[in-house]
């Protein structure tokens, strides 16, 4: 080889645009590689790409679907971010999501409040219960890690399976709707409001031919009815701001970052690591549980066997691709929400999952560009 590749450790500050650029490049490259693999198994990448676009961003209705799928990802991604910031590897957001959904549905299924309770109270109670459920499921691995140094990766992962089985037991044994793997549909008061509901309520007030109506027609928004976008996305956005505030403005966020960066230094600084391990896992679980609540209250409107196509795992990739930045998580979630929407229809069915794997691999590989300058140099032989 006439050239030799050399790596030089970066000493200077990394340019601010670089992390974002490497993430973006990773996504583009991952799409290209997936296209090649698709070609290999006899698919038509161009057709799939065109379908991907129309099914996800092609129209307001499609975009609404994409946001609906992005909603749980935002919250789960934030859940992962807060744990990963402290280098607690919470791989159990999937289970925390399921347990959050379970606890939230208890409000309706036991029922904790009578069905004629006003909607805001029911929703608030469900959101709280969802967070409690997720926090409980996060507490165990956090406690075991803090007290007995039990590897949290394995415990959180094992609890995923346990949570799904736990839900199944109650769905099948207690609340099954005529033997199906789902509970009866919740009363309307337990539904998060959706755009289509607003359309029904306020649509009557917009006069035919008025300026507002014309505007809505011009941007293609005249048919809001049928759009499934629900209030859960607001939960996600608020959570993103809260997590950002925790990271950037609070003392607790500083402690989390310090423990993550250098555990020994944190110990010498007098930070209570054991307590923070448990707290962070509970906060992480609570966010994932809230995502579970939003999904059953906003989308499926009942507790059922399969409520997550792997949101918990996708959230890990989302968090990492966004470099644990809360606002970047929102953006990345939209992309991965699109991937889930399109992935339901694209054959072969594993394509979306494979794409996620490739993205994550490329992102962590591209970190090398952040740590090193890579230079091409003429080899000694060539110079001589």
């Amino acid at each position: 080889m006439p050239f030799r590749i050399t790596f030089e450790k970066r000493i200077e500050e990394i340019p601010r645009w670089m992390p974002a650029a490497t993430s973006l490049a990773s996504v583009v490259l991952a799409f290209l590689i997936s296209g090649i693999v698709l070609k290999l198994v006899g698919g038509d990448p161009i057709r799939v790409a065109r379908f991907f676009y129309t099914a996800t961003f092609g129209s307001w209705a499609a975009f609404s679907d994409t946001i609906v799928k992005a909603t749980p990802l935002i919250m789960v991604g934030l859940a992962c971010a807060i744990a990963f910031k402290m280098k607690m590897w919470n791989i159990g957001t999937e289970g925390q999501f399921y347990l959050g959904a379970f606890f939230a549905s208890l409000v309706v299924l036991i029922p904790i409040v009578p069905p004629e309770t006003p909607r805001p109270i029911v929703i608030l109670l469900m959101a709280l219960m969802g967070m409690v459920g997720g926090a409980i499921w996060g507490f165990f691995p956090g406690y075991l890690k803090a007290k007995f140094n039990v590897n949290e990766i394995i415990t959180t992962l094992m609890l995923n399976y346990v949570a799904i089985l736990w839900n199944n037991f109650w769905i099948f044994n207690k609340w099954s709707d005529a033997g199906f793997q789902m509970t009866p549909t919740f009363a309307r008061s337990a539904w998060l409001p959706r755009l289509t509901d607003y359309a029904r309520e306020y649509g009557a007030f917009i006069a035919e031919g008025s300026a507002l109506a014309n505007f809505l027609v011009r941007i293609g928004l005249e048919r809001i009815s049928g759009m499934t976008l629900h209030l859960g996305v607001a939960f996600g956005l608020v959570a993103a701001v809260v997590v950002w505030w925790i990271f950037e403005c609070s003392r607790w966020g500083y402690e989390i970052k310090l423990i993550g960066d250098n555990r020994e230094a944190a110990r010498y600084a007098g930070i209570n690591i054991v307590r923070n391990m448990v707290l962070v896992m509970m906060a992480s679980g609570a966010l994932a549980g809230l995502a579970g609540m939003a999904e059953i209250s906003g989308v499926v409107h009942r507790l059922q066997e399969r409520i997550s196509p792997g949101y918990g795992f996708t959230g890990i990739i989302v968090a990492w691709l966004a470099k644990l930045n809360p606002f970047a998580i929102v953006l990345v979630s939209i992309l991965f929400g699109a991937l889930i929407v399109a992935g339901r229809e694209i054959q072969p069915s594993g394509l979306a999952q494979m794409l996620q794997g490739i993205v994550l691999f490329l992102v962590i590989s591209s970190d090398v560009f952040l740590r090193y300058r890579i230079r091409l140099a003429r080899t000694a032989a060539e110079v001589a």
Partner: protein
Amino acid sequence: MSLITILNAGLATGTILLFAAIGEIFAERAGVLNLGVEGMMLLGAMAGFSTSLATGNVWLGLLAAIAAGGLLSLAHGVVTIHLQADQVVSGLSLTFLGTGLALVFGEGLTGKNPPLVPKFDIPLLGDIPFIGPVFFEGHSLLVYVGYFFAPLAWFYIFRTRPGMHLRAVGEKPEAADTMGINVYRLRYFYVFVGGCLAGLAGATISLSVSPGWYSAQTTSGQGWIAIGLVIFAQWNPLQAALGGYLFGALRRGILDLQGPPMLFGFRNPLFINSNYGFFLQMVPYLLTIVALMIGSRAAARKRLGAPAALGVPYIRGERGL
């Protein structure tokens, strides 16, 4: 349901965990944590199944499974050994990648019947009462291979020179490097070995223990249980084999508990309401957590356990890569 059938079937199921866990022990002893076992197993299961189906030759199938697991693990090797990425995240992405690849290439394999790994009795040994029917009757070749494999792996790691180099690379890579051992090459090699064994473990499922392709359900988290087992076994192949068989028997016994109407003289609650089976299915996962707690405590007490350089990338001098 008899004890002999449960133990016999448990050995078969346990062989899956045995291969996967010992593979992971090799990688971790060299200092590389590979959390991608589940993905490598699934890819191996798919590769073995489809190759056996396409060629009609089960041995080629096993070979393909081993190769698939090994090749996939090299991706982890490059990213963690050369690019020094975080081993936890890289291992996770390996699981996603392996699962995704397996699902894409495994499309349409469900319900097919390729040739399987042959099963046979061992003459003479099979006639010993109790032990014979449990250990030496009707097992597939892979189970018999497992009997030899665990002690051999133990001997290799603890009693041979290359095994000592392996441990040195995982305990104190700087010292090993000074000794003239090529740390990078050995780490690549053992990550590859781990991948090959995970692939074989996958094929053990799809071509022998529960033949078939059930997409992601094929492995159903056994790769993760294997990783937990490594900690429980304190990085010792013999203990890993024992743990694997124990878990195998347990998984199997759980299935059998749902059959009979009477159990130990009581009415079997599972027979009356099969929904209680969901709790039984939790047992292997909960037990993995318990095993981890025991393993972590024992390791702490005996000051024994994880290779010192586990999860730490080795950077030679200041030149970096």
